[in-house]
């Protein structure tokens, strides 16, 4: 006699996985912290290395690209640094997220736990890294607050409205708090990215390689070390094309919704809509994958 055999593939089980995963927040919270502590276990200054390496990278590249693009480094350096910090989070969710189940093979095969726990562990770890990196932002804010809070500042340092000045930005104000909902939205996206790409990558081990080789390209395609302002200020004959084309890079919008408020720039509604749309579509795909292949992951790892 088989009393209403519970099917492996059901929405109920997929949602139960997510619900149970969130309920185990002590578990993934602890694991996420453990990951950070573990990475710097025997180093003297520990997780402070996260902050230092971010600071050094942002400073070096900020100076370099400020010179290359002929920008004012007082406003360009914070722009590059914040771009880096946000990119670091997105990149971490993508590259570590897609390998989350592969990396947790031992635990998955030895202890019954919802898959969502491992996804949340990854996103939480990235959040902690981001928190460390925000120290760099705070320092830059103290140093360059005057330049960033000036109304109608430009990244080029030229007076707003003059030839080749590029965009005029409203300057830093209370609008900076919009970075908080922006981060929450990006983190929510981190959840589906980890679940969906995690499941796909566990089954098809070529996918991590493909994504890894693409992230470097995506980094340069996305305005992080360069600014969209440069496109608008420049005089290259093809710049009209470029202005439109970079908008098709979804990662630009992800970076922009969080970075812009933090450096006193304006976010277009297009960016919020694109990110909002991707959130809905992404979670729908991730839920579908979770429903159909959740039970297969322990077979595939």
């Amino acid at each position, binding site marked *: 006699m088989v009393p209403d055999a519970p099917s492996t593939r059901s929405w109920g089980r997929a949602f139960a996985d997510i619900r149970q995963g969130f309920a185990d927040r*002590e578990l993934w919270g602890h694991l996420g912290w453990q990951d950070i502590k573990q990475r710097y276990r025997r180093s003297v200054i520990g997780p402070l290395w996260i902050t230092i390496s971010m600071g050094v990278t942002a400073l070096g590249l900020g100076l370099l690209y400020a010179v290359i693009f002929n920008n004012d480094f007082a406003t360009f350096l914070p722009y590059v640094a914040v771009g880096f910090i946000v990119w670091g989070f997105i990149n971490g969710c993508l590259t570590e997220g897609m390998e989350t189940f592969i990396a947790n093979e031992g635990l998955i*095969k030895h202890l019954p736990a919802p898959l969502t726990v491992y996804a949340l562990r990854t996103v939480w770890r990235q959040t902690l890294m981001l928190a460390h990196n925000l120290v760099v932002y705070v320092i830059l804010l103290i140093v360059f607050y005057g330049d960033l809070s000036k109304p109608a500042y430009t990244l080029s340092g030229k007076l707003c409205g003059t030839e080749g000045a590029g965009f005029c930005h409203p300057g830093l104000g209370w609008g900076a708090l919009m970075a908080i909902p922006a981060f929450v939205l990006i983190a929510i996206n981190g959840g589906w990215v980890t679940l969906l790409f995690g499941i796909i990558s566990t089954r098809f081990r070529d996918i991590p390689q493909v994504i890894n080789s693409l992230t470097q390209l995506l980094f340069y395609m996305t305005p992080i070390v360069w600014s969209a302002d440069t496109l608008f200020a420049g005089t290259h004959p093809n710049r009209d094309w470029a202005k439109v084309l970079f908008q098709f890079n979804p990662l630009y919008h992800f970076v922009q919704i969080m970075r812009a408020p933090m450096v006193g720039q304006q976010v277009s509604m297009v960016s919020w809509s694109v990110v909002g749309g991707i959130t809905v579509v992404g979670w729908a795909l991730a839920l579908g994958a979770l429903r159909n292949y959740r039970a297969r992951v322990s*077979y595939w790892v």
Partner: protein
Amino acid sequence: MVSIDVWNASVDFPIFDAKTRSLKKLVLGKVGGKIGTEGKVPIIEALNDITLSLKEGDRVGLVGHNGAGKSTLLRLLAGIYEPTRGSARIDGKVAPVFDLGVGMDPEISGIENIMIRGLFLGMTRKQMEKRVDDIAEFTELGDYLQMPLRTYSTGMRVRLALGIVTSIDPEILILDEGIGAVDAAFMEKARDRLSDLVRRSGLLVFANHSDEFLAEFCDTAIWMDEGHIKAQGNLREVVTAYKGRDPFENFSQETLRRIGQSPALSTNGGDHA
């Protein structure tokens, strides 16, 4: 109500990185599950058409050759593998102890491993902090608990794993073979704790090759062979059928008295499924 029900469950592993050609030869082998090669991806049929029903109070021993499907069955019962065909329902808080090297992080200390294992088994941090002293005392690991797990011997890992699962009152306890790695003195100590736990927690499934361990903890047994249940029933009968001799004959009077068995077996063979 603590129970495990499995209906016509099969577990098939896809092996993505195996070459079908070389595996064909293995089909002739006697060890391991049957290897199916119809599809593009070779499949190992680790478990085939398993139906069983375990309820509160059951103490089941699992016997069978290497590769007969014991560990896979334990993983199925623990809810780690969901059946590829058929279905399974597990009611109760499961605490599994598998291969003891894996599933614990060798780089972090024993204490931290206790915490993580406890959280995985559904405890809160506070509850685990309260139990750390108890685990430290039971395992006799003392200051070693501060050391990274990679410095532990196999026996010490078993102690740690047993210390954790026996301290958290699970409803379903699932133990794989590794347990044998501890010394006799510790096993004596673990025996009381385990039998106490089994009395309280309801359900034990235990895979082991040692007659003594099986006799000590289990009253029924399942004989796994090539991925299906060959026999199931009274421990003594099943083990006698499996080994071809009565394992209890060699036990000392003292052991027999403790487990409440008579020296001679009246019936022969298990009830074959």
